[in-house]
């Protein structure tokens, strides 16, 4: 295995899901995605004798699953905007929190109401 070329290396480092977010994908995945070899898989087809058919379009259509994720994300953000005025971690640091009994505190970390 030879090390990647400088261009590939910096491409990965500055690719946002590469290093910046965590990293969220590894270099091999990035490389296979960029060179499109990731999509060289056969569609399983029981009728075929060679184990499947090849797609004509390299990258499959992905608009609908992507939109579903966008809607799901939007709903989570809406839930965050709706509920964070009621439940917030700062409550645990306020003096009201210490008025609670030890047992009640265990549950209040998740279900804290302002003003106790």
């Amino acid at each position: 295995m030879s090390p990647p070329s400088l261009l590939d290396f910096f491409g990965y480092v500055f690719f946002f899901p590469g290093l910046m977010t965590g990293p969220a994908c590894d270099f091999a995945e990035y490389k296979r995605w960029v060179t499109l070899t990731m999509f060289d898989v056969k569609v399983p087809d029981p009728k075929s004798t060679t184990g499947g058919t090849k797609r004509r379009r390299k990258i499959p259509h992905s608009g609908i699953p992507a939109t579903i994720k966008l809607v799901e994300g939007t709903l989570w953000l809406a839930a965050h905007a709706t509920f964070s005025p009621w439940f917030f971690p700062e409550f645990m640091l306020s003096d009201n929190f210490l008025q609670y009994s030890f047992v009640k505190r265990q549950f209040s970390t998740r279900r804290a109401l302002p003003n106790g």
Partner: protein
Amino acid sequence: MTHRFKYYGVWKMAEGACILSGLGFHGYNADGTLKWDRMTNVSPFALESAQNNKAYLEAWNQMTNKWLKNYVYLRVTPRGKKPGFRSAMATFTTSAVWHGFYPGYYLTFVSAAFIQTCGKCTPSISPFLCVRTLTGSRLSTSFPAVFSRSRFRDPDEI
């Protein structure tokens, strides 16, 4: 919990962006339908209903967990040995360095390494296991936080 909603939101949107660009492609199911779960980063249900620390951490930031496991946890382990506490500590410290230089990160991640290792040693005799099961999740993390808070503040006030 509501604090985590914003992470769910942006991660799900980012996953959608990865799917749109094709990076989320993960092959086909046996029936020929497409799988788009390569870039799934968080499983809110698995996380909120986690019964132990391992399941909890596994459901959170899954892609980075996988990266850290393959490129730190398994790489710092000497060949032929099983990864142990030192590998876990190296992994969590790497994650802390990635997050930044606030001391809080190091406290959190180093104690997470301890918690993770303890959970590995005594998964069946943990005294909080049954409580956690009853309340759904998360007592494991809220308990130390509440306990340390009462230890720090109580002498003056109660």
